[in-house]
């Protein structure tokens, strides 16, 4: 005798992300992902190869011809870049200028935004929600529209002269970076469990103590990922520095790069090497902090 057992069809509750991840790790999926990655990397690879080719080759043939004579490489472009001077200032000082600009310009807005995000999340004050909406709304204002008003302000009597130069660039970057930073950090800090904050208040902690001892340590992933964002953005910036930096002695590497092409339009082979010189630091930063980067992008979107 046989019995038919009717089993209920299994309910698929696998989240979409897991499904996608599973599909991508199948052999065909893998091949496809590799293909995509390769395609994406081709231009960068072309640039990298070009940067090691002699000037004559670069200007006469495409970079792929290098594969036919792979021994034909030179470091001339790199030495050309490093020896390049703008108005008598060597390229290396532009590198240090970029470092000098990028580190504070990444830290200042994030510190301020963290305080603001805490206040927006955990302090009660009148007009809190309206203010937050206004700040988030500022994200839609194009940076370019603010250049002239801000420049006028920096030039006015209200702004102390002592701050001019690199400090002005820091302030400008802080201003432009703040809305997004506050928005992202508010989402993260606001999703911390309210009972933990309340427990600290009952334990006798002030807002500042709660912020320093509990909220900041718990927000490291969000802060780190935001720091990477802001750092990369500032590192690659040309416009803000050029507008607010004043004299050439305060300008970052990007300005020097433009100068290479601008003044000597026919020496664009230097640009290939210059691009890689400017890319090194962001690459190191990204690769060393990428685990925060991925986690930070997901910050607040999923629990746990």
């Amino acid at each position, binding site marked *: 005798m046989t019995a038919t057992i009717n089993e209920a069809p299994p309910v698929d509750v696998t989240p979409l992300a897991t499904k996608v991840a599973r599909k991508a790790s199948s052999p065909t999926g893998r091949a496809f992902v590799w293909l995509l990655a390769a395609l994406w990397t081709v231009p960068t690879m072309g640039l990298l190869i070009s940067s090691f080719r002699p000037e004559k080759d670069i200007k006469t043939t495409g970079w792929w011809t290098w594969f036919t004579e792979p021994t034909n490489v030179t470091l001339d472009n790199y030495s050309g870049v490093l020896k390049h001077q703008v108005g008598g200032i060597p390229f290396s000082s532009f590198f240090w200028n970029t470092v000098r600009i990028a580190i504070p310009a990444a830290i200042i807005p994030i510190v301020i935004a963290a305080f603001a995000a805490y206040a927006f999340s955990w302090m009660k004050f009148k007009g809190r929600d309206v203010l937050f909406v206004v700040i988030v709304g500022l994200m839609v204002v194009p940076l370019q529209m603010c250049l002239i008003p801000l420049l006028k302000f920096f030039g006015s009597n209200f702004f102390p002269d002592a701050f001019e130069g690199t400090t002005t660039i820091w302030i400008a970057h802080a201003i432009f970076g703040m809305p997004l930073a506050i928005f992202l950090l508010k989402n993260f800090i606001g999703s911390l*469990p309210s*009972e*933990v904050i*309340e*427990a*600290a*208040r*009952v*334990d*006798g*902690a*002030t807002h500042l*103590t709660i912020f320093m*001892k*509990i909220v900041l*340590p*718990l927000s490291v992933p969000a802060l780190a990922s935001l720091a990477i964002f802001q750092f990369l953005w500032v590192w690659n910036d040309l416009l803000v520095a050029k507008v607010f930096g004043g004299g050439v002695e305060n300008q970052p590497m990007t300005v020097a790069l433009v100068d290479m092409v601008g003044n000597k339009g026919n020496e664009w082979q230097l640009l290939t090497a210059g691009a890689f010189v400017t890319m090194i630091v962001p690459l190191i930063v990204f690769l060393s902090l990428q685990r925060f980067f991925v986690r930070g992008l997901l910050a607040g979107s999923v629990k746990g």
Partner: protein
Amino acid sequence: MSTLRMNNLQKRYDNGFEAVPGLDLEIHDGEFLVLVGPSGCGKSTVLRMVAGLEDISGGELLIDEVVVNGMGPQQRDIAMVFQSYALYPNMTVADNIAFAMKLRKTDKTEMAAKVAEVADLLELTAVLDRKPGQLSGGQRQRVAMGRAIVRNPKLFLMDEPLSNLDAKLRVQTRAEISKLQRRLGVTTMYVTHDQIEAMTMGDRVAVLRRGVLMQCASPTDLYETPQNLFVAQFIGSPSMNVVRGTVSLSGDDIDLKVGAQSIRLSGEAAARLQGLRAYDGRDIAVGIRSEALGGDGTAIVEVNVDLVEMLGSELLVHCTVEAPAVRAIDSGVEISDQRESTIVASLDPRHPVKVGDRVQLTVDTLRMHAFDLETGDAIGRQ
């Protein structure tokens, strides 16, 4: 050592919702008071107002006879245990326990000694270096307790601290908390929705419904002489059986007609429910607990047995009686439109009753309750 007093304490939200319309309650020095009620009854709101985490809309809150309405939580010198424990995930167990002392700039050696003492008391010594994420639920609960007791606060506030534990651990921890509180003698306010927790732990239990205090009394009083239908049905498991009945007076005795049957109250039983004399010919709610059925008793009701549940120490018998059920609802009292209702009797486990039987149950008339059908108030000696 402290007292807590609420004078017409009120909570109104911005959207106009009145969570607590006006609460008068006093907790004596060293007392363990349990605030109990169904979810949404405002018990947590009251606790949070006491903690200073929620603004007070009206009335007064006094700790040690000092009005604390305007004080922040940090100025009130209270300790609170949260439902989710709310441990600081970035700190070790030792740091969690010491956090409040660090904020008060306690001397380091004293602090270490206190942490060690509390850890020893709560059996946490082995896990002092761990982070909360590496602890079991029971251990986390004990850390939360440790964080509260290490400070020697004026008041302990506990917001359903056992609801995240499994059933067995809950019973065990329940006893531990009770013992600990008695030993430390700290005035405690404990919030729960679980009436068993309330009955077993509290010196007194305050029953709250929609922000209104229904009754505040010792567990025994609450069980034996509930002041209204809501308390009668909320406290006790199984819940009190309540059906509609009609009062008819015959001389010194009082007859309660339940369906076609009549229960005669005489002597002490009639004296206990003296107030029923004002209800001659009117309907009331008749209440009786499951254990007052089928034991000692003079009156008898006949019922049909629907279901028998063997619990080991007792036998729960679900029976049908020909009278509509009455129950307390949010807006007052509701009488079922069914002619029959189910009552539960708790019998001796050796009782030979079977499903489908028609049995006669004795009724202990000295343990009967009567309630007004309009207000739900208990009718007593008056």
